[in-house]
């Protein structure tokens, strides 16, 4: 008799312990500053409520050094279950076999999200797009008025844009264009819109040749250099933004964080946002973003994927974007939210994202990006010869690829 009770007791105890046995998913993410971290924590708390048998261990990474921590962990055979990765790092990690192939898990909703092309390498999907980003043209309306333009004038072609910058720079103490100095991982994002708008490409369509020094590319760099030389306020990104917010610059290319800054710092500046100008309207801007990937060595991949799906769900994304003043959620459903639809600046960003190119998904991209950046620096701050700089860069990239 007692033996039966014992067996029944043990059976239920085991059942109970299974229910109590939680799966722990470790997530490494970058959004740590006090304005947005509480929202991340809240999203994680909601996830744990929705899935009581999954516990999330959240680890914060700094933007400056976070990628090193990821690389060191993976190199040592450790690493989180879920990690946030910038779009330019995905191919490198995928090629090394560190990211789980998510093609089967995510293909179902691929048309509900923007940005999947940045996470696709060799036909397989390695990450889910989360928060995307692009660059739009910010213009100082007051300066445009002072320069004699009509009250709602905005340049739509590159030629008009160049003329507008020159005209604004004729005002006293004012510069027409904010031109970035040599800053790592920033300068190339300012050049590439010109590059792509002119029709140039880094690689040929079949991907076999580097065509960085095509005539179109040289023209684009020449245009960029002309802007820089004739009316450029040359400083770091922060310096350019500071000067723009103080009314010293007519046009700058910037991302949605500038909107956050203007709002949080209560800046009084009469500014407008518009799409990047093109040959005929509109041009192609730069697209990148933050993605969520699963460690190939993760033992909790199911729970990890559930976390990813939850965090990238429309409501979670809208919540995040509101806290961070982000303009480009990857979820198309989120993009339809009232929050984005009612704000003209956010609308510009949403539209621009559809009119943006992203860099090729290439494991060597970080290296190629550095080479392109050095070419632009050479043309702006060094020898001053765009054609030569681009040709040298093309040679370096070709050598790199044939290694």
């Amino acid at each position, binding site marked *: 008799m007692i033996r039966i009770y014992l067996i029944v007791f043990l059976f239920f105890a085991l059942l109970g312990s299974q229910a109590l046995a939680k799966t722990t998913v470790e997530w490494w993410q970058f959004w740590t500053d006090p304005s947005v971290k509480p929202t991340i924590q809240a999203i994680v708390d909601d996830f744990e409520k929705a899935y009581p048998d999954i516990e999330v261990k959240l680890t*914060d990474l*700094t933007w400056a*050094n976070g990628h090193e921590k990821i690389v060191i962990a993976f190199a*040592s055979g*450790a690493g989180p279950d879920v990690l946030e990765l910038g779009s330019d790092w995905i191919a490198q990690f995928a090629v090394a076999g560190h990211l789980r192939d998510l093609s089967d898990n995510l293909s179902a909703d691929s048309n509900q999200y923007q940005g999947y092309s940045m996470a696709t390498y060799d036909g397989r999907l390695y990450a889910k797009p989360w928060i995307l980003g692009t660059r739009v043209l910010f213009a100082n309306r007051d300066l445009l008025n002072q320069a004699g333009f009509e009250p709602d004038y905005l340049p739509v072609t590159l030629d008009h844009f160049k003329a507008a910058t020159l005209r604004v720079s004729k005002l006293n103490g004012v510069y027409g264009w904010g031109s970035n100095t040599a800053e790592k991982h920033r300068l190339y994002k300012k050049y590439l819109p010109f590059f792509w708008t002119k029709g140039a490409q880094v690689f040929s369509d079949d991907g076999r040749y580097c065509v960085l020094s095509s005539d179109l590319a040289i023209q684009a760099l020449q245009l960029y250099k002309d802007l820089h030389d004739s009316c450029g306020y040359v400083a770091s990104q922060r310096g350019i933004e500071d000067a723009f917010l103080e009314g010293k610059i007519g046009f700058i290319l910037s991302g949605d964080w500038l909107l956050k800054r203007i709002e949080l710092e209560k800046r009084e500046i009469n500014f407008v946002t518009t799409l990047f100008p093109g040959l005929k309207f509109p041009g192609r801007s730069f697209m990148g973003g933050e993605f969520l990937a699963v460690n190939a060595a993760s033992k909790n991949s199911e729970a990890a994927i559930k976390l990813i799906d939850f965090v990238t769900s429309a409501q979670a994304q809208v919540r995040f974007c509101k806290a961070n003043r982000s303009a480009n959620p990857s979820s198309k459903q989120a993009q339809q939210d009232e929050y984005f639809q009612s704000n003209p600046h956010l609308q510009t960003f949403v539209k621009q994202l559809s009119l943006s190119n992203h860099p090729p998904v290439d494991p060597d991209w970080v290296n190629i990006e550095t080479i392109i950046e050095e070419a632009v620096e050479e043309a702006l701050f060094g020898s001053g010869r765009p054609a030569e700089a681009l040709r040298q860069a093309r040679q370096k990239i070709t050598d790199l690829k044939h290694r």
Partner: protein
Amino acid sequence: MVVRRNIRFELLRYSVLGLILVVMSYPLVWMLRISLMDVTGSVAVSGWLSGGLTFANYVDLLTQVGLGRYLFNSALVGLCVTAGNILFCFMTGYGLARFRMLSNKLLFASVIVVLMIPVHIIIIPLYVLMMKAGLYDSYWALILPFLVNPIGIFLVKQYVETIPPSMEEAARMDGAGDLRILFAVVMPLCRPALAVLAIQVFFTNWNSFLFPFILTSSDDLRTLPVALAMLQGHQAIDWPHLMAGSTIAVLPVLIVFVLLQRQIVSGITAGAVKQ
């Protein structure tokens, strides 16, 4: 005549010192100013008078960001490491100074070698070590590798070499044992060096970023420099909060320095070097 010259001399002295003080402390005073700004303040040259005066940034850090916990972690780790270093560096530094064997010369070489390798190269194997030993993401990872600091050993060795062995020999002739000589005779003589060592070790550890960042993951174990780094946003720096955090990080310095500086400059007793 003498009085007037003295006043002129004093005036000159204080003006020179004061001018240097302005140059040395200006960036830090500016840091303090920004920490008291509200969000509308500007960090440009013209910004001194903008942004008002508020303690809100400090309050935010202690309440919203939970800086108190991180201060505690840094203090705990710092005190453990400093205490360990005072004891261990003193022992080893003394040994290397007084015992002139070949093995000690090699040992000293190992001390110097560790100083000469950049930390980025060491961090990966150290990370692997910590993982294998199960110490990753624990206080031990922040304390154990740093209990004996090469610079500390170097400092003590250098200092002990300038102390004549006469006092130790005298104590030995009086029948004192090794331990007594070490801790009752030599250690007090080394007070200035040990004070410098304590300051050096405590503040290197207090400001250490890379090792705590890589060797721990939990929020509970986060130290102050890592917490401050997290205040930096993706594309923008939250200057007021960051500067407030930095000012908080600097306050213990003032306290510890005022407490210890007399140790350094009170000097060793004249009796130690009287012949």
